């Protein structure tokens, strides 16, 4: 029996310059799940904000729950009413920490259920996180994922984003 690939790279990019957001568009509906892997280079700007994703350009209908450890505290949080799904804290001022983000979108292509996402995000100079998100728009297949900073800070040049489809 021939090996059948179950994890397939759909698209990847390395940012050549600082940009406000990056979008995977025209995502085919031929897979079961999606995995987004992001590596965010040490950042420009100052302050603390969060990384988030918008699905199909929708700016409402999101909620989620997260756990995080800062090194000195462990916290949980619940959010609703944001313009995207938060996936990671973002310590813009540290200058030392890369951020790893891995997001799993389950059953992304059906038109019968709300969509769920499990995410991990790690920055060893800031915090480590695990979160779950729910997109509660009238069910539709996810065909685009926009990654952006909720506080408006640009994504740093050199950051990489890859989207995988899971059969």
């Amino acid at each position, binding site marked *: 029996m021939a*090996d059948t*690939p179950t*994890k*397939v*790279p*759909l698209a*990847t990019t390395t940012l050549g310059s600082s940009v406000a957001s990056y979008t995977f568009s025209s995502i085919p509906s031929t897979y079961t799940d999606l995995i987004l*892997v992001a*590596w965010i*280079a040490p950042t420009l700007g100052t302050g603390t904000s969060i990384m988030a994703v918008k699905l199909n350009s929708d700016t409402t209908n999101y909620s989620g729950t997260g*756990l*995080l*450890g*800062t*090194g*000195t*505290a*462990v916290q949980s949080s619940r959010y609703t009413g944001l313009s995207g799904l938060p996936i990671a804290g973002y310590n813009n001022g540290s200058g*030392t*920490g*890369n*951020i*790893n983000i*891995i997001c799993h979108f389950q059953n992304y292509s059906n038109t019968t259920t709300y969509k769920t996402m499990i995410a*991990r995000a*790690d*920055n*060893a*100079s*800031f*915090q*480590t*996180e*695990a979160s779950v998100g729910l997109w509660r728009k009238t069910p539709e297949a996810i065909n685009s994922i926009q990654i952006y900073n909720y506080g408006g800070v640009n994504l740093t040049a*050199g950051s*990489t984003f*890859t989207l*995988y489809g899971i059969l």
Partner: protein
Amino acid sequence: MGMAEFLISSVTVGAGGASSIDFTSIPSTYTDLRLVVSLRSGSSGTSRGLSFTLNNDAGTNYSTRYFYGYASGVTGGSTSSSTDMYSGLYGGTSYGANIFSNIEIYIPNYASSNNKSVSVDSASENTSSTNYIGFWAGYWAQTSAITGISLKGSLAFIPNSTAYLYGIKNS
């Protein structure tokens, strides 16, 4: 389209146990690395800390932030200027028979010229209340491509502990 993930190498600890599990000569032809381990310590302790070094670097170049939950609470912490990467917890002989702990280590852009960041999920379920689930963020302040990973337990890994190293391609 092609496959994304490939088995690079695997180790199964043999009779007598092992004080470390080593992967060497890791090719730079992938984008990310994923290391999946199943471990148990030969010691009587309830849990042991796993750590690893990269490229046999014993300098003070490793840092982490982490938290984990157990039967009755949560706790967390950090390490800095360490000589290895603290990266999870695994059980010893006080765990129920045949129970091994699972730890997954993900390293994106391992062959790049940037400092490396690491994500770790660690899970140790048990038949008693001594169990853990936790998350680690790691950082290696070195720009070399990763060519070697050495897992080190605070006490030896027992036979049938396993480690599988996968390479992931993004195109």
